[in-house]
């Protein structure tokens, strides 16, 4: 429980750093570290498949994509951020944490959630039999992403 809490605190700290840091490369690496911590949390919640996906795809692939984009857009660091945000951001965030700690306990009893019994079978059975349509949707989403990237990087025709 203590280790899990420490991992969750690390996850929030690195996520906030990813948003707050000025250097884009450092913030992309902080995002990768927070994904790594989230993957470890998933492993500790008995969800190894989600943990593997989180670490390999989100901490690996998405970080590479972010770093590639940062390298291709060199003057990205020159965007002037508003100075007001720099000191308002931590204040509002700490205020939200206090409200969150006070209110969340009361909300837990009121939010309706399905009270079902423990599941039977393995993860494979649940994924392939129970969520078959999700898999079809995933294939469609991947194809849509591929076509979108191809369309955005196509070469110009001669008459353009």
């Amino acid at each position, binding site marked *: 429980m203590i280790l899990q809490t420490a991992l969750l605190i690390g996850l929030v700290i690195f996520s906030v750093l990813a948003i707050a840091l000025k250097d884009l490369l450092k913030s992309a690496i902080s995002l990768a570290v927070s994904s790594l911590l989230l993957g470890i949390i998933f492993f500790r919640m008995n969800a190894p498949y989600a943990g593997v996906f989180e670490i390999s795809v989100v901490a690996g692939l998405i970080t590479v994509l972010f770093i590639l984009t940062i390298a291709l857009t060199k003057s990205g660091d020159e965007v002037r951020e*508003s100075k007001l945000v720099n000191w308002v951001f931590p204040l509002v965030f700490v205020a939200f944490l206090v409200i969150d700690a006070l209110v969340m306990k009361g*909300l837990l009893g009121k939010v309706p959630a399905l009270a079902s019994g423990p599941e039977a079978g393995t993860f494979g059975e649940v994924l392939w039999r129970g969520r078959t349509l999700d898999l079809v949707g995933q294939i469609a989403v991947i194809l849509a992403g591929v076509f979108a990237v191809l369309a955005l990087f196509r070469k110009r025709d001669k008459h353009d």
Partner: protein
Amino acid sequence: MTNTWYLYLFFAAALVFAGLLGLLGKRNLIKLFIAIGVIGKGISLLLLSTGFAKANILTAQALVITYIVIEVSLVATALALIINIYRHTRSLDIRDLAKLKG
């Protein structure tokens, strides 16, 4: 079990709020997508922790994997768009997008 669930929901809400603050305050396009990534982390933590607390971890895992696939596709498309915007405007400032001059 409720105590563990409370802990996870507390941190998931903190992540979502941090991402929303980033979306509201930042002007760099890449920073905005990093903020969207942070919101996504909060949502996947929420999904999996609810599955964990209600003894439905397998379905929750299937949903989280679906979300991760969607996120990869989203980020790839968005970063391709950002590179195209950078080629046009030579800047990553979101305010430059308001100038719709070709």
